[in-house]
């Protein structure tokens, strides 16, 4: 510091200016990248919307006829996965945050995080070689005994590669995400609330029902939405496990299953050519829009109660 003048002008020093510009540029690159994703996807999918039915698929379908079963399959598989994963995830989160011994809890949390780190292609391989043959006898039993129930209608798939198996694999994949978020929220329940409930003579479950769950509701909702977003976009596990068909069907155990957008792209993209590529990119654009909406909603719920929920 040679003269006081320099330090007075310090906010405008050259180093400061360069550095802050660099930081700002990085931030703007992210905005540009996300805009570019939207722009390039739209640009590449425009030809698909006006494509001739014969170019879209061998069965002469309009783009709408092509996309509707895919959207249905995507949403259906994701919702099924969520129905399986949500109660178990909340259970695990509660177990880790309120039941397991303190010292064990940390390790258990790490083990659950490990589930999230396993690559999806390994889940796919496991789903097809271990899970599908394992659950097939149960499916046969279900169809034989509860076949009158529309979800379990026959004929049963002989391989077990049905939408229910996919949903189980997806559930295993999204469970760690939901668990991690819920755990954070549950841990932030004010201790005084819990202790007050205990002091009133509440059992452990009553503490959870009266203090922990109401406090964590926003967090649970947003965790659910994030899990849903992940399930919607999951590709390889679905592509490898499901035996796909172009149908809209709620049946869980048959060999004809509605496939998902992401799996459909992965299976058909390597061989696609001409307008076929554009059609697949257009379906990808629709997937992008769906997941964008789901994620944006989830983030809005979190942000609205940010200082409250702590899940971010």
């Amino acid at each position, binding site marked *: *510091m040679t003269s006081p003048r320099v*330090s007075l002008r310090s*906010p405008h*020093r050259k*180093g*400061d200016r360069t*550095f*802050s510009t660099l*930081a*700002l*540029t*990085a*931030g703007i*690159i*992210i*905005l540009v990248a*996300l805009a*570019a*994703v939207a722009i*390039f*996807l739209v*640009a*590449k999918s425009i030809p698909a919307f006006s494509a001739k039915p014969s170019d879209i698929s061998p069965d002469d379908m309009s783009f709408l006829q092509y996309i509707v079963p895919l959207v249905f399959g995507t949403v259906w598989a994701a919702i099924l996965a969520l129905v399986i994963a949500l109660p178990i995830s909340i*259970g695990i989160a509660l*177990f880790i945050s309120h*039941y397991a011994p303190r010292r064990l809890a940390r390790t258990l949390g790490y*083990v659950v995080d*490990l*589930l999230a*780190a*396993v*690559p*999806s*292609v*390994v889940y796919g*391989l*496991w789903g*097809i070689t*271990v899970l599908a043959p394992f659950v097939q006898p149960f499916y046969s039993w279900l169809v034989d005994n509860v076949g009158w129930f529309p979800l379990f209608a026959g004929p049963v798939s002989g391989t077990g590669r049905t939408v229910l198996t996919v949903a189980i694999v997806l559930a295993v994949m999204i469970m760690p995400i939901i668990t991690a978020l819920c755990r954070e929220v549950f841990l932030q329940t004010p201790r005084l609330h*819990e202790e007050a409930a205990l002091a009133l003579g509440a*059992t*452990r*479950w009553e503490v*959870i029902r009266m203090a922990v769950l109401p406090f964590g509701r926003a967090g649970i909702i947003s965790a659910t939405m994030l899990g849903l*977003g*992940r399930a*919607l*976009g999951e*590709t*390889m596990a679905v592509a*490898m496990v499901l035996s796909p068909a172009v149908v809209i069907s709620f049946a869980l155990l048959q060999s004809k299953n509605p496939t998902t957008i992401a799996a459909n792209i*992965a299976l058909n993209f390597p061989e696609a050519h001409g307008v076929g590529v554009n059609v697949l990119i257009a379906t990808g654009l629709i*997937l*992008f829009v769906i*997941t*964008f909406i789901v*994620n*944006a909603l*989830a983030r809005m719920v979190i942000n609205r109660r940010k200082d409250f929920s702590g899940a*971010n």
Partner: protein
Amino acid sequence: MSTPGFANSRRAITRKTIWATVAVSTIVSFAFFGILAFAGNTAKLNWVAALVVAIALYMVLISTLSAIVEGRRKSIDRLITTLLYGSFALAMVPLLSLLVTTIVNGAKRFDLQFFSDSMRNVVDEGGGGLHAIIGTLEVTAAASVISIPIGIMTAIYLVEYGRGKLAKSITFLVDVMTGIPSIVAGLFAFALFSLILGPGIRFGLGGAVALSLLMIPVVVRSTEEMLKLVPNELREASYALGVPKWLTIVKVVLPTSIAGIITGVVISISRIIGETAPLLIICGLTDSMNYNLFMGRMTTLPVFVYSSYANQGTGTADIDRAWTGALVLILIVLVLNLVARILSKVLAPKGTR
């Protein structure tokens, strides 16, 4: 929960009773299924069904017992406790099954040849995944080179500089970016490069661009969290000594939080190294070595696993290679996670945090 017992109840179920209930339900259930198997109704002992029935039996027994002895409220409490323990055990089943299957099946081809050969001109037995391992390392390294500076600088902008609408919208979009399906990232890279370089483009750098799109938000989020942990007193002390803001960030803020930042970066790498879908689209598939990121198809390990599974020849050579590839992938991810944990321990600033 420091006092899980029920001090106010006169009669309570003791630990001994609980273990007795566990034993009774297990014995009854396994005896039932054992008799079924012995009588020839089922081919062999169906231990999964036996276990499920045992747990259900235990839940019924303990809650009835508790309802009689301790009252309805405590009976519900016991039921829920069992359910929570059960849900955790249930979640461990797939993890264990997956690890065991991968290790057992992957060990068959976990030999030197797998790490020294590519698949060039290999028809049945033999061959290896060297080309895929090299591809994965190169693509991941390139993605890291793109993502880490952008991610860290964005986090610095958000924490140290960002005010107002722009910072808010960047935060929101980073959050939303975390949820982009990986296959959409691949389609984006394909759409971008096919417009520039012509249709049907497949090359390694495109994969790196797609992966960066998935990696940047993870880096930003974790770095942001770490920068926020740096106490403001440190910054203010530095300003008070006349140090300019950028030097404060470089010399004070970053060194304080470097452990967390590196951990976050390593974890983000372990996230993208297993990505399959985007690389299937933009990197393509080849049986030969390709060291050049800028030209030609490039196989990566996850795509190698997928294609070995999807295009199986006769015999088990392909599926064995797929499992070994999966094992190598899991090992890489495990090692990265371990490195992250160790680094965060070693580099953590001493003292309270």
